[in-house]
């Protein structure tokens, strides 16, 4: 087999055009996952047995099934039962399922962050007369955020990678784009190598940025 250099190079501009869309999917999914995770954490620590039980089942399901199954159930399975779900677009399904898939992990990360603030500091907060609101704003949330930041960063990277599975339901993100480029010229090998390199560079850059932010916000540790 011959490696078509010219075609290989020509893939990059077309793929790079899709990078913002992939990042957008990942960012929206991350924000949704964060809000879901927060909500899940509140449910899971609820005193109401039923609420707690449902949150437990949710976490268990999303943790113990492959992501692609979750996507297929959501996108192909549920619309057969619920009519209104037929109008859910591929990209919406992708974002929602990626968010749900990561929300259990994020809930745990949030819990870990909140628990990282020792009791002594909370008592000191009480002793100087802080209100509950001020205690969270000044002491607990800033420290929880720093403690959770590295895990949240990893979750974000996982979510970006999960967007690639969008090609299975026709969302035209990076990987679908590569598949289409390959299909139109029957140079799949070149197209997939190119998309691999694009993912790699993008994720390495994100990883670097996250590490830089981490050293910045962790300055007090």
């Amino acid at each position: 087999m011959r490696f078509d250099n010219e075609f290989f190079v020509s893939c990059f501009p077309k793929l790079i055009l899709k990078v913002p869309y992939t990042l957008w999917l990942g960012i929206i999914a991350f924000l949704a996952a964060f809000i879901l995770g927060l909500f899940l954490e509140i449910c899971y620590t609820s005193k109401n047995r039923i609420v707690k039980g449902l949150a437990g089942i949710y976490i268990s399901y999303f943790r113990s099934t492959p992501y692609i199954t979750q996507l297929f159930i959501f996108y192909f399975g549920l619309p057969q039962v619920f009519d209104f779900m037929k109008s859910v677009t591929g990209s919406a399904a992708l974002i929602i399922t990626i968010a749900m898939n990561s929300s259990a992990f994020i809930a745990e990360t949030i819990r870990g962050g909140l628990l990282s603030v020792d009791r002594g500091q909370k008592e000191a907060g009480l002793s100087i007369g802080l209100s509950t609101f001020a205690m969270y704003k000044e002491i607990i949330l800033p420290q929880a955020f720093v403690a959770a930041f590295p895990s949240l960063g990893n979750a974000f990277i996982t979510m970006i990678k999960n967007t690639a599975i969008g090609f299975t339901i026709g969302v035209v993100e990076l990987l679908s784009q590569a598949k289409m480029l390959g299909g139109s010229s029957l140079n799949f090998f070149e197209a997939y190598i190119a998309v691999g390199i694009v993912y790699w560079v993008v994720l390495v850059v994100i990883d670097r940025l996250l590490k830089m932010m981490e050293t910045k916000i962790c300055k007090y540790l």
Partner: protein
Amino acid sequence: MIRVENLHKSFGDLHVLKGIDFAAKKGEVVAIIGPSGMGKSTFLRCINFIERPEKGRLEIDGVRVDAESCKEKEIRAVRMKSSMVFQNYNVFKNKTVLQNVMLPMLSVQNMDKQAAQERALGYLEQVGLMDKTNEYPSRLSGGQQQRVGIARAMAVNPKVILFDEPTSSLDPELVAGILEIIRRLAKEHERTMLIVTHEMRFARDIADRVLFMDGGVILEEGTPEKIFSGPEHERTKRFLDQLK
């Protein structure tokens, strides 16, 4: 200035405070001594409402609460009359030295930033930390962290400062510096001070009055001379003998 009546506190089945009655005047310095696990910390923590007593009344500077029927608002009001210096310092890790000391003034007293900073620097000067104002606690020694703890407790502008074994976690060479700061504060007789300590010479030096706590009550109290030279109770005598 401060009055405690019939204070009770239990943890589950463990009845730790069994009716404490206590009062102190403005500026009075009271040392609290006694064996470990007898409720000395719990007593201070109940005054500061870090622990919630089941029963008893507390009055500081005219603010009065009854443990059995008090609202969150009353608790905060009385809490603001006292502040605490902890055995483990408990400084806020995400704040610099200066921010630690400014926090009570900014977040509780709603003072403006300029004034709070000026006051905070004044307190930091008193505890000898002017060269560390912009450091984070992780970069400080235990002794320096405890200085922050003391400056922060002063920043609350409390009527009563509660010291819970302020030197017990410190390396031996750092103890004297902290004791010296507390000694100076005590000499001002501005604020009432309750100090739980195992430093008997220090207690004898600075206290106007010494309490001996044992078995969940104040077993004996009096001037330092009386407690250290001629204690009435056998238990007090035995405790002091053990330390020698």
